[in-house]
């Protein structure tokens, strides 16, 4: 599957008239499967030059993700809509320009020691 086909499978291109915030994604809007808002993103180590067709927002994301950063932090930091960031991240993931570290979804509830650490951390605030 080419990256374009994959993108087509992933994103709903039938978004009707292109609406302002999604103009930078060519009208593509996030489909059902999204990255977790607290998934951690990191720019992949670069083998060579960046692909020339990256948009400024892609580059902004790569710059902000030089050290690990969550999806939500990226959106807040770059002042982009969360849904837009989802689409741009997908583009970068397809081109293997970023690594994603999804939080453990299956075992949503962390173990007791983590929870204790959270309580102690909050008390110490």
């Amino acid at each position, binding site marked *: 599957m080419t990256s374009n086909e994959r993108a087509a499978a992933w994103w*709903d291109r*039938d*978004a*009707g*008239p292109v*609406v*302002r*915030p*999604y103009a930078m994604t060519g009208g593509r*809007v996030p489909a059902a499967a*999204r990255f*977790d*808002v*607290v998934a*951690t993103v*990191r720019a992949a*180590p670069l083998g060579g030059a960046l692909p020339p067709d990256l948009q400024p927002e892609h580059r902004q994301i790569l710059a902000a993700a030089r050290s*690990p950063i*969550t999806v*939500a*932090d990226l*959106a*807040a930091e770059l002042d982009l*809509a*969360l*849904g*837009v960031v989802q689409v741009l991240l997908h583009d970068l993931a397809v081109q293997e320009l970023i*690594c994603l*570290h999804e*939080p*453990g*979804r299956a075992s*949503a*509830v*962390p*173990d*007791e020691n*983590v*929870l*204790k*650490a*959270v*309580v*102690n*951390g*909050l*008390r*110490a*605030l």
Partner: protein
Amino acid sequence: MDYARSDRTVPLALKILVAGGFGVGKTTLVSAVSEIRPLHTEEVLTSAGLDTDDTSGVEQKTTTTVAMDFGRISVGSDIVLYLFGTPGQDRFWFLWDELAHGALGAVVLADTRRLADCFPSVDYFERRGTPFLVAVNCFDGEQRFATQAVRNALDLDPDVPVVLCDARDRRSSKDVLITLVEHVMDQVARTQTPASVRSW
């Protein structure tokens, strides 16, 4: 280039949702306990024409901006709590679905003068099985309902904590979060006991 190692130093990110009706104090609570930043999303809403004369079947797609409260609290060196507060209107549930996935738990803020406003949030978390508590925001301290009255009015399960708070107060809001995490711990303990008994 030790990427395996750097992955292990990624902090553990935990999500807590702050829900409740319009103007109940969600933004106030999140900003009292965390460094708050504006976060927004543009959601594409598909609405088939509600007009019964509309036989064209043409779907209308529009985007709507949803503003969220986005707070971040570092607890210890390797755990970060992320707080997400967003409007509790029904039309935003799709957004809650995204945020609630894998969430640690939720705070449902309630105002006793408009208690019904938090019904949808309570229903939502009950149905999803997300651990939650109800925090009654005591506007001007007037509405100090007995927590039992709130519990009855909301028809809550006996194990769901109901606490009073002042969302403007850091300490009070912090206590709400602590009670929530302790509630999650209780639930974990409860679900784990039968399993360990079985394996024993």
